[in-house]
């Protein structure tokens, strides 16, 4: 299972409970494309524990604006719908994993 793609229509509903990792990305962004497989991999590793999702800022401009995303890749961790962590630039699988584990405790 790879990461699911969220849109404006389902974002709030899908993220309101539990821990969610959201990867804001776009196809024209080199480092985002490097991060893509890593995010999909996390979706597998955290299946049934956390929601691992992607938001294409090209298609979901309003969501990107709502989160004030001005640089991608930006990864935001939400807990019960509230932002608890944010990192900009591709920081590698380990860092994302640490964030998830920290907020799953």
């Amino acid at each position, binding site marked *: 299972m790879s990461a699911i793609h969220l849109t404006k229509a389902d974002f709030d509903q899908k993220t309101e409970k539990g821990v969610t990792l959201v990867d804001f990305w776009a196809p024209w962004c080199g480092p985002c494309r490097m991060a893509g497989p890593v995010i999909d991999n996390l979706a597998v590793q955290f299946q049934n524990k956390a929601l691992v999702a992607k938001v294409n800022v090209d298609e979901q401009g309003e969501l990107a604006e709502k989160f004030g995303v001005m*640089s991608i890749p930006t990864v935001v961790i939400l807990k019960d719908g509230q932002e608890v962590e944010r990192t900009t630039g591709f920081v590698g699988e380990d860092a994302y994993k640490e964030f998830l584990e920290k907020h799953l405790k």
Partner: protein
Amino acid sequence: MDYDVIIIGSGPAGCAASIYASRYGLSNIVIGKTQGGTISYAHNVENYPGSNGISGVDLMITVEKHVKDLGSQIIYDPVNKLEKVQDQFMVTTSSGKQFQSRAVIIATGTERKKLNIPGEQELVGKGVTYCVTCDAPFYKDKTVVLVGGGDAACSGAVHLSQFAKKIYLVYRGSSLRAEPTWVSQWQELASAGKGEEIFNTNITKIISEKDKVAGVELDKEFNGSKNLACEGVFIEIGGVPGTELIRPLGVKDDDSGHVVVNQYMETSLPGLFAAGDMTDQSKVMKQVITAMAWGAIAASSAYKYIKGSQAPQLIGVAR
């Protein structure tokens, strides 16, 4: 796992080294931190022969496929430790995997340089960015500052001009040191009023308002003021050699921190070869084509080191 050669670094130099090592019949693995290395940040590579315009990511996707087609593998699991015990190298990754080999080719490139000024770190993602390709579209019709004067800065300015209203190129030097093609494309933008050069100038502070970039402070006046209003700051000032892994091995480096190699890409430690932007050779050119060439030479030298004889001439055609 045991290999003839372990290649650390998955950019152009590391991948080319793997391609040549595979064709020499050397078992090898590429262990990288991120896919494609620094070139993945380039929006368009226009000087790689055979292709007069390809994004850095797309170029490296084809190179990566080539590496795998020849039987090698690439894993993304940053190397934490490199040791040499007698004639054997030991590589440990951050997930704890261990690999051994007779020879190592290190091609870990560079780490992006930062300005290290007030406001920079706090405003990353809030107007400060190190990736033009990634973030240019967020600055549609906005005024931005781009710091730097080399290829990445000038090509970045050209790409950025498709979105931004106005680009100020702030550079500490007195003239641009990018490829003339990029310089002339930048100058066209400047004469069309979309770009303006501010040379012999440094940025001393990034100013924010409401937690977003609002301007920069310069170390000398420009148009009568040291403050320059802008909504974005793009930093393209090159990199420092990523030599952390080999420092504990006492490998010789130069004043600028680049690993010293000879024409065979040999470092001062037998069995350890280096290629690409981390070596002192790269001070001549930091290009995909040269990094790949050095990677190929490093593979040939590793062959000689392991087999005790000169690597065969590779003709590349079945006869």
